[in-house]
């Protein structure tokens, strides 16, 4: 028996969450869930770990702050120090108050942009990428559960019992 992908389509978010709880109890492993909007409690129901992209954002912010500090030091105090308006730039520390706005802006700039890029990269999203949802209705009002299993009949029953509107079976390897 070959492993197949079985899809169950639900019409309601509450039904979907109940179905997931039932599958969890019965020990059926869920491969993926596609929803049109963020569902509260879905990540815990699926046992997803907390995402770490906000931790990454923190380090991107530190990077931006360091970059701004080095840049202002190099340009204003090291490479070409000038006496501007009777306010000489002898040391970076003495000049620091004037650099705070730049340091702040670059911290935000790096944290926001690099975090967004990280989000796109880890989610494998880029301009022109193929749509990741197998059924176009999941961006409208339907909720799709994807399960990979060899026991197609058992999964089908589980879907129907939990109120799925539609069950589809697909071969994992394309039929020759």
């Amino acid at each position: 028996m070959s492993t197949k992908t079985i899809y169950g389509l639900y019409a309601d978010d509450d039904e979907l969450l109940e179905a997931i709880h039932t599958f969890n109890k019965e020990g059926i492993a869920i491969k993926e869930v596609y929803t049109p909007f963020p569902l509260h409690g879905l990540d815990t129901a699926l046992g997803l770990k907390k995402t770490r992209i906000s931790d990454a954002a923190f380090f991107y912010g530190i990077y931006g702050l360091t970059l701004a500090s080095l840049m202002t030091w190099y340009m204003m105090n090291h490479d070409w120090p000038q006496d501007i308006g009777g306010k000489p730039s002898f040391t970076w520390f003495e000049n620091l108050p004037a650099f705070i706005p730049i340091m702040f802006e670059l911290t935000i700039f790096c944290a926001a942009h690099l975090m967004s890029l990280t989000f796109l990269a880890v989610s494998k999203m880029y301009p022109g990428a193929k749509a990741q949802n197998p059924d176009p209705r999941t961006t409208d009002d339907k909720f799709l559960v994807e399960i990979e299993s060899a026991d197609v009949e058992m999964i089908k029953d589980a879907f129907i019992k939990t109120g799925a509107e539609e069950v589809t079976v697909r071969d994992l390897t394309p039929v020759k």
Partner: protein
Amino acid sequence: MSHYESPTRQPLVRGHKTYHDITVDIAYPIEHPSGKLWWLAFSLAMATFLYGVGCIAYTIGTGIGTWGLNRSIGWAWDITNFVWWVGIGHAGTLISAVLLLFRQKWRMAVNRSAEAMTIFAVVQAAIFPVIHMGRPWVGYWVFPIPNQFGSFWINFNSPLLWDVFAISTYFSVSVVFWYMGLLPDFAMIRDRAKKPFSKKIYSFLSMGWGGKAKHWQRHEELELVLAGLATPLVFSVHTIVSFDFATSIVKGWHSTVYPPYFVAGAIFSGFAMVQTLLSVMRKVMHMEDYITRDHIEVMNKVIIVTGGMVAVAYATEFWVGWYSGSRYEDFTYFSPGAAVGPYWWAFWALILCNVLIPGLLWIRKIRRSFFWTFIISIVVNVGMWFERFDIIVVNLSRDYLPGGWTMFMPTVIDVGIFIGTNGFFFVLFLLYARTFPVISQASLKSILKSSGESYKKHHTEEEHQNEH
């Protein structure tokens, strides 16, 4: 799962909407040809935009002498418009970032358009300093780029340079924040698109979004952190804009009240512009069930609060101007001298448009009226324009020596450029309204069961029955 929300809260989505209804309503303007009204507005905006382009071309070709500037007033119309446009932008970020942190659900119906307004307003703002350079083709010299002048770097002590960093960070972060929120909505349009061309475009724009559970989890986190980053950013931007004046030694400008006063004024004018746009858009685009009277009212309340803050700042400035007994202070934009001086009309226009008329919003009937909201929002924008005009022109017009006293009057070119930026703004906004999902439908669907009218009614009835 409980979707309970207190019945004392008004529903945010009116009527008997399902998830699919939201999809259809939001996709409607994109999937159908534009009406006559849209074409009329678009042609008008395009014509004024092209007129502005002509005036800009004339300025660049001939020189800054085409403007009404003079020896005492080297900075007037352009910087007024710059500050005005940047200020307008502030409401978008406030709605999408600050209100997200405060978990205000009503923001979901208005944040997309408010953010669009932010981005388009910042584009208009950026035009003014660039053309005032006189040689806009070397405008990139404001960035820290290695060069052949012995590496002669930019001056990081200058508030004008802080502005460059603040505005470009603000613009780019706003675009990214807006775009990340758009991904699921573009995907919705993509999955409905029938014509191959629009399918291709929206596939490109949606970057393959599929609504996977893990991706939603990351997306929620991303929005939260971006909101956390954008919140101090939005307060910093107008603070730094105010530094352009506050760090100088010109009387009336050299004032510590400027940063908070500018930020409050920016939010005040920004919300007014949101009201101007949305009170028309909800009608023309049939979004009445999503942008309700209650949405308009809460935004009017923000206008009351921020308008109150600027009014207090005006009173403070006026008091200081009078009480200091300094003859220089009597020439500042908020002083008895200004109220009766040659710019008395600009002074009283500000008081009328920013303090007295918006004061009508304290009356419940008026702040819940679409008509009066629209009128007052335009009045506030006029008033906020005069505020910047007063700050800049009145303060500069009376130099320290009477020999330098002068007046500023804009030329036809000055006025043309300003009108042109208004045209450009509406060109962008009208194009946006036809091609983008104007309401963040994915977030709206997530609150439908708790804040939708029919669901709410159903909850209350159920609870009522349980009591007996």
